[in-house]
């Protein structure tokens, strides 16, 4: 083999030639490797971007189509001028909240965030709902119920299946009608007493009308309640209250605040502990 190559080139291969050739070969190989590396980087980078982009695009598309699917009640956009039930205001630390009882202004402020579809809220109501209301009616705390409907998007599919879309929003809106009829506490307690065992079942319009009856709304007042519920008069209020919930970054429901400080959940659901906490609080 070497005779063959020598015969062609005539010149004997010197050590320097061999080294130069080796260097050239090495350089060529390095360059090829570099090219290949760059190619892998570009193709791989593009591939990763395409895959991740497609996944994120799919998620966005899905969330879009979800929110349009749940829109059979067509909720209004947040609007501070939307009608409010009696006694509810649209600004300040208790914006869109439902006042309970008539504790003096010197009593500590107790706020409780709840979603009518939330099972833990029912647990709280079963455990200490009465105790919380007694703090208000006994004048020991200025109680404000703060409604939220954050579960609606999560339960959209189940709600829709049961012909009860946006159940949290609609249950709040109907509550507004009951508040106008002077049955704020009654309606609140009736809803939790009748909360479906399976989360997501929701409340049909017939159920919400029945809650009004069970709350003791009768005669002309019931006719007004019925119209109010069917018209969705207070859906805007529910939307506004949910926005307040989101803006305040409330960590889920139920959530209790005493003078603006979060109450530990084991205290909120325990009458003795909550009474003690409230008694020790100053305005």
């Amino acid at each position, binding site marked *: 083999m070497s005779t*063959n190559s020598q015969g062609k080139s005539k010149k004997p291969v010197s050590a320097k030639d061999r080294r130069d050739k*080796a260097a050239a070969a090495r350089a060529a190989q390095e360059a090829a*490797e570099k090219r*290949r590396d760059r190619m892998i980087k570009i193709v*791989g980078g593009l591939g990763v971007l395409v895959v991740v982009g497609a996944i994120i695009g799919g998620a966005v598309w899905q969330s879009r189509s979800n929110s349009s699917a749940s829109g059979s009640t067509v909720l209004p956009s947040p609007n501070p001028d939307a009608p409010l039930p009696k006694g509810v205001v649209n600004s300040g630390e208790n914006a869109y909240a439902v006042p309970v009882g008539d504790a003096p202004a010197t009593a500590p402020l107790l706020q409780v965030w709840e979603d009518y579809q939330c099972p*833990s809220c029912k647990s709280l109501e079963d455990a200490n709902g009465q105790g919380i209301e007694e703090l208000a009616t006994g004048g020991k705390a200025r109680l404000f119920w703060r409604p939220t409907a954050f579960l609606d998007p999560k339960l959209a599919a189940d709600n829709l299946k049961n012909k009860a879309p946006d159940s949290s929003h609609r249950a709040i809106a109907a509550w507004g009608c009951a508040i106008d009829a002077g049955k704020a506490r009654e309606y609140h307690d009736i809803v939790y007493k009748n909360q479906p065992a399976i989360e997501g079942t929701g409340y049909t319009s017939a159920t919400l009308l029945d809650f009004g009856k069970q709350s003791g709304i009768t005669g002309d007042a019931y006719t007004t309640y019925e119209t109010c519920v069917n018209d969705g008069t207070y859906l805007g209020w529910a939307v506004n209250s949910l926005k307040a919930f989101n*803006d305040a970054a409330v960590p889920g429901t139920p959530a209790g605040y005493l003078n603006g400080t979060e109450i530990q959940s084991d205290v909120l659901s325990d009458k003795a502990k909550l009474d003690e906490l409230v008694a020790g609080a100053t305005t």
Partner: protein
Amino acid sequence: MSVDAPAPARARRVAGNRVVGLVLRLVLAGVLGFAGLVKLFAPGGASDAIIAYRIPGMNGQIADILGWLMPAGEVLLAVLLLVGFFTRWAALATALLMACFIVGIASVWARGYSIDCGCFGGGGEVSAEGKTWRYTSEILRDLLFTGMAVWLVAWPNTLFSLDSKPNPDLYPEGDLDDESLDDLDATEAF
């Protein structure tokens, strides 16, 4: 990894690391990919789960953005680890992310809250029952993932990855020697 180690032993050890590295990459990619996808396809992303951690200064808008960004990041890291692309950096980011999760869980635990970590979707308030074991196991699990990621930071050269050369076993370390040069001559001659 001493250079003085006999070549076959070194090759074996490196090869062993590369297989272990591949397994770690796939496990982490699976965990991150699953966690990211579940959150990404949940209504509202992970926003509510993030709020439950009561991070000081958190508000609804920041949580909304983070609630999409974090799972998107998890999916990106999962894909990078899956194909072995920028393995070391992806592993470093994974280790830091896991460390954040550990700090977050330890922090809500220490502050006395009882939440679902929302690690694989869900999140929010849960009953305090079994809280100690829940938090402990979550932290231990995330510590394990952190350790796996740290391994990949230390030994990012893994089997079947876009990072490594096509077949490193065919490209031994060191320059071409005269012998291979003769082969080169021979091929050129024909």
